[in-house]
Structure formats: structure tokens, C-alpha cells
């Protein structure tokens, strides 16, 4: 690479705005759908683990082992079953979110004060109604703290999916390497970080709106 090549060539960005927007959209979908699927799986799983404690250690062990498998390797294992498609990226990312989300759901439910639980029971709430209307809402701040970690790391991991051609903005990272041209790489990194941090900020906002009573009480994990 020549030494006078600037880190960012603005003209390139101006020329590629529409394409960049398209890939940003793809990236966001690939990064956030796994978190959504992860939530759909972990909320019932977390409730079950909270209720039947013996279930928790095995679930935790399995999700920890999954989490310690490097993303590139996990993508490759799934290539066999789902081919070079978006699922190959989204299924491993979904599995990763579980190791953050399930413990947070369980911790959130465990953080419900015993008197509150007893009060709900005394008011005639059955188990299902107590979980849905009392325990889950109280657990929301802790659950969202987990969602924040899951979302931020999921969005930044999507780029690795580029090695099987499904990386969203990661496309510009490989493109920049092929052309020996840093602008696309820098742009992609900055856009990915911007997506992750914006998502994080929106989740903080969501937590404040959803649980106005717990403002400032929960530290982010």
C-alpha cells in the first residue's frame, strides 16, 4: 500500500452510500434476529430453570461449552447442514446469546423479593399468572442487561460470517483486503460499532420505559 493513501477516502463513501445502506440493513438483521430468537428460547428456558433448579447446571454447562467454540469454527460446522446461507450465521449467533440470556433471566427471577412473591400468592395469583404479571416484569432490568451484552457482541460477530459470504458489512472488510485499500475496512468497522452502540443505547432507553420504577437501580453487566 502506498504511504500517501489516506485512512478514509470520503469520495469512496460518497460513491457507495446506497450500497452501504443496503449492507447495513442486512448486517442489522443478521445481528439482531439471533438476539430475538435467543430471547424466545431463553425466557421459557430460564423460567423452567428457575422453577426446577436441577435443570440449571446442565443448561449452563451446555451453553458455556457452546460459547467457548470459536465463531468461525461454529459457522463451519453448520455449513454442512445449512449451506452458505444466512441461517449458517444466525443459528450459531442464537446459540451464543443463550449463554448470556439464560443466566440473566434466572438471576432476574431470583432477584424478586420473597415478600412480593408471597403477596402475589396471597392475592390469589396462580403460578402462571404470578410469573407473567409479577416476576417477569420485575426481572426485566436484569434481562435487558443481558440482552445488551448479547446484542452488542452479536452485531460485532456477524462480520466473521463474511468468510462464508454472509457477513453483512463484513463484505467491505474482505473487499478492502483484496483491494489493499483501507477505506472500506475503516468504514465497515465504524458502521458496525455505530450499530452496536446505537442498539445498546436504545436498549437502555427501552429498559427505562418498560420499568420506570427501577430507574438507576440496575448496573449494566
Amino acid at each position: 500500500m502506498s504511504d500517501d493513501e489516506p485512512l478514509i477516502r470520503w469520495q469512496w463513501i460518497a460513491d457507495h452510500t446506497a450500497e452501504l445502506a443496503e449492507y447495513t440493513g442486512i448486517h442489522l438483521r443478521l445481528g439482531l434476529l439471533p438476539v430475538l430468537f435467543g430471547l424466545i428460547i431463553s425466557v421459557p428456558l430460564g423460567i423452567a430453570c428457575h422453577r426446577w433448579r436441577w435443570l440449571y447446571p446442565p443448561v449452563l454447562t451446555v451453553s458455556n461449552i457452546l460459547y467457548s467454540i470459536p465463531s468461525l469454527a461454529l459457522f463451519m460446522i453448520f455449513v454442512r447442514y445449512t449451506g452458505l446461507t444466512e441461517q449458517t450465521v444466525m443459528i450459531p449467533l442464537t446459540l451464543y446469546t443463550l449463554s448470556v440470556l439464560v443466566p440473566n433471566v434466572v438471576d432476574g427471577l431470583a432477584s424478586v423479593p420473597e415478600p412480593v412473591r408471597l403477596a402475589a400468592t396471597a392475592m390469589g395469583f396462580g403460578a402462571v399468572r404470578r410469573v407473567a404479571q409479577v416476576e417477569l416484569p420485575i426481572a426485566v432490568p436484569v434481562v435487558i442487561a443481558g440482552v445488551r451484552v448479547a446484542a452488542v457482541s452479536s452485531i460485532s460477530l456477524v462480520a466473521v460470517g463474511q468468510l462464508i459470504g454472509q457477513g453483512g458489512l463484513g463484505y467491505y472488510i474482505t473487499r478492502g483486503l483484496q483491494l489493499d485499500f483501507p477505506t472500506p475496512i475503516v468504514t465497515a468497522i465504524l458502521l458496525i460499532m455505530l450499530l452496536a452502540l446505537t442498539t445498546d443505547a436504545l436498549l437502555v432507553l427501552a429498559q427505562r420505559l418498560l420499568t420506570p420504577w427501577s430507574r438507576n437501580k440496575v448496573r449494566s453487566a
Partner: protein
Amino acid sequence: MNDFLNQMELVGDWLTSSAQWHGDEGIPSRLVEHLTYSGLSLLFAALIGLAFGLLVGHTGRGAFAVASVANLARAIPTFGLVVLVVTLAGLSTTPVLVALVALAVPPILINTFEGVRGVDPATRDAARGVGMTEWEVLIRVEVPMALPLILLGLRVAAIQVVATATVAAYPGLGGLGRYIVDGLSRNDYGLVIGGSAVVVALALVVQVVFTALRRVVVSPGLRVSTAKS
């Protein structure tokens, strides 16, 4: 299920073919490369992360900065960082180490900080009360009590580094990722899945080593209260 067995057979064939165990392209030399990258970057990251984590945790100054750095760092796409460093600085070990260190510092830093901060203020005051200097309070009280969290941070960092060193093969470096990247470009799925299997095994070994380390170094008195990891 049948397909899964086929896959295992591919891995088995690849692992047992004697060509895999000799020369520059063999598993042992790739593994050494991989461990060299990972080990060196983890060492540097530990020095930086522990020093700042202990400092900020003990004095309580700069807590906000630590939290912001950690959050920002999680958002950095690691794959992009490695490729960018290689594009800017050329292909050699040093730039890759820089990228890997940048990745590994935040988890070590934040966990060390949280661990030291989490020590009960009464315990800290008691230590001062029996006449310990600030330095002794840090080394003999805060560090041992923070050890479970510090080790957790080191473990997370180690696993991330081992995983990301794989990605370093993409811009043309060695390490175990070579098998995956080469296998993909040659359309040789046996090579891809074989390489993945070795990386997975390595990540699990790291996990086990840190769990064992924790058993050995954490004071028995702390085990009950920190059972959750």
C-alpha cells in the same frame, strides 16, 4: 444423524492421516503458531489489564472510563480489526498481536476492576485497622478476594484470543485458522471441519485449564460465595 457420523468420519480421516502431523503445514507446527500468537497477546493484555484494573479498582478513580472502554471494545468487530491492522501495517506477527491485545484487555480490565470494587468496604477498613499499608491491602486482601472474577476475566480473554487468532489466518497468517480458510477456498470440507475440530478442542482445553486453575489458586474460604461464574 447419519450425516453427523459422516462428518465425524471426515474429521477422523483428516486427523489420522500421517501427513497432518509433519512439516510446516502439519497440526503440531500450526498449533505452536496459534499458541504463540495467543499466549503472547494474552500475556501483554494481562499485564495491561491487571495493572489498570487494580489501580482503578483500588483508588475508585476512573470507574466511568473503564466501563465506557469495556462497552466500546465489545462493539469492535474483531475480524475487521485484524484485517485493518494487516492492511495498514503489512503482514507480520506484531500487528496481529496488537489487534489481539486490544481484544483481550477489556474483559481482564473490567473483571479486575469489578472484583476489587466488589470487596466489602468493611473488610477493607478492617485490613487498614490492623495496620496494613495501602499496598498490603491491595495485595493481601483485595487481590485474593477478587481472584475468582479476575480469573473469569482472564478465561474470557483467553477464549476470545484463541478464537480470534483463527480469523488471523484470513489475511494470510498462520495458526489453526489456516486449515479453515484454505479448506474453504479449495472447497475441501474435510480440511475445514478438521481444522474446526482442532480449534474447538483447544478452546475446551483453555476452558478446563482455567477451571482447574481456579480450584488451585482461589482460597477455599471464598468458594461458597462465588459459586456463580
